[in-house]
């Protein structure tokens, strides 16, 4: 019996990972943006594989159609010359490799520490036809569909219920969501400040 979903997952995930590595390795900046396009499209394909059509489509629309086009415009129009090559020094490679592996470790530890994940694809989707049946969860308290996560970001209690005193509460993700939003705002303001036109101090000769 064929188990198509893992096969497709490994295919798409390895292609996406290769494209992501090529983003870092390639020396031409516009080609790096192109490989980033394939990486984001691969992520969108993973969403489709999970049966999350809306999220996959939003990924395509927002990232590929919006953010990446903006990125490519900026890259193309602000490069000092056509086809400049970026040479990365050995020290930069070393530091970025260390930081990258540390980050990968943090992500892996936090992903695998989610106990007994009962993620399942939505009813009637393509992914459900090929998903192993014994892992689907019927309990909405344990279900981790993206709609439930979205509700958690808005402050609705999701996840398993636990007692606190004599109240039953569920966790929500409102605070991390707000922190990430403020963080993003700080990053945007910082980038705008760094990219400002600097006033020249000397008089014109």
């Amino acid at each position, binding site marked *: 019996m064929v188990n198509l979903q893992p096969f497709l997952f490994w295919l798409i995930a390895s292609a996406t990972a290769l494209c992501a590595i090529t983003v870092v390795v390639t020396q031409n900046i*516009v080609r790096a943006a*192109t490989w980033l*396009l394939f990486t984001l499209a691969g992520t969108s394909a993973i969403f489709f594989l999970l049966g999350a059509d*809306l999220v996959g489509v939003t990924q395509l629309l927002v990232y*590929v*159609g919006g953010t990446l*086009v903006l990125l*490519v415009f900026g890259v*193309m129009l602000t490069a000092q010359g056509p086809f400049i090559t970026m040479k990365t020094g050995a020290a930069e490679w070393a530091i970025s490799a260390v930081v990258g592996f540390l980050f990968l470790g943090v992500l892996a530890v936090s992903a695998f520490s989610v106990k007994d994940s009962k993620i399942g694809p939505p009813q009637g989707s393509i992914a459900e036809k090929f998903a192993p049946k014994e892992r689907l969860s019927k309990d909405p308290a344990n279900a981790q569909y993206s709609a439930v996560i979205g509700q958690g970001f808005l402050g609705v209690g999701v996840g398993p219920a636990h007692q606190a005193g004599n109240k039953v509460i569920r966790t929500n993700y409102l605070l991390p969501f707000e922190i990430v939003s403020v963080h993003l705002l700080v990053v945007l303001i910082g980038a705008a400040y760094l990219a400002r036109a600097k006033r020249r101090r000397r008089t014109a000769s």
Partner: protein
Amino acid sequence: MEFLLAIWNWLVSVWIVVRWPLLFAFLLITFMLVSAIFSVWLERKVAGRIQDRLGPTRVGGKFGWLQTLADGLKLLVKEDIIPTQADHFLFRLGPYIALTGSFVAFLALPYGNGVVATEMNVAVFFMLAVMSTEVFGIILIGYGSGSKWSLFGGMREAAQMVSYEVPMAICVLVPVIVAGSMNLIGFAQVQETTAGTLASRSLMWNWYLFHDPFTFAAFWTYFTCATASCKRAPFDLAEAESELVAGFHTEYSGFRWLSIFMAEYGSMFAVSGIASLLFLGGWHIGVLPDDPTAYLGGFFGNLINVIVFIGKCWTLVFVMMWVRWTLPRLRIDQVMMTCLKYLLPISCVLLVGVSLWNMLLPTEVLALFPIVLFALCALLVVLLIKQLITWASAPPGTGMPGMWSMVGVTGYQGARKTHS
């Protein structure tokens, strides 16, 4: 030996899973490319007729049916030239990204009730998102050619396509609000009701075009935005045949150019498909009280539906061509101004208007309005046809003098009196 057998069994089971999707993909890409061939022939004929000449008449009989086939053969055997200054990888990659973005949109486009490659609940959103990845192909085509004409054309085109996506998406939202779903099959089904009184049968006034004044306006606005996002005239600055040599595809010849144009005609058909499903009732003929499957059975009924749908899409493609050869080209600042200063506010007003209309007005008005609007439009069409016949049957030189006639200019020998 058992290992080989296991591999064989695995391959067979993979084949059992992928054979239907492969067949659908094959049918879709065949249809898309044959439709592109037909559209190129139609374009040349329409261009010829509007310019008072005949168009292709030699290849394949009296009407030049096989002209596009001959063109395609020529393009296939043309020399593949890549300029030395081009970025070779991106130059090769660009047309394929554009073609992929245009083709994947067909996966969610239904041709009939259930005649669709993948029935998605977010079908219209999916099509819009995938067609927005075509922009990236255009950017790579323009940049990777290594020439300034291509770069200018590519930048203009990318700015135009990205800007026009916003009013296009808002205009798509207008019928989505009325229908309550993004499922394209559901759209066609909701514009048809086969039970109840005569007013609610599967007739033309159920189409969303006539549903309220805001969807009526949204159809024309959507069609304008769709023409701009397909980079068709009057928004074809990117190709700009008389300005930028050939715009973003200057350095492309042979099969690569063919890929770019198949992508363009494919997305023209896709946006026409969205327009006919959202506003024109999809595959419904509009004059029969029931779906053809009720009269002719499953296969032939669906065949009629598919033919009607393709006919509607080709009619809209014909309208795009008609507009192309009639109107002069807009400058790039006029293009951006049209989008940002006119179409975007208009579509926002339509969005608010359609929500208020459907929320606040009583149901009698909502039920009566489509019939009134349909009657008005039918009257307008009848008057227009009558006037066209009057003009066409006038003797030559009278009737419609045309823009180059020098009637009333003293001293011009060719001036003739009109009937006025």
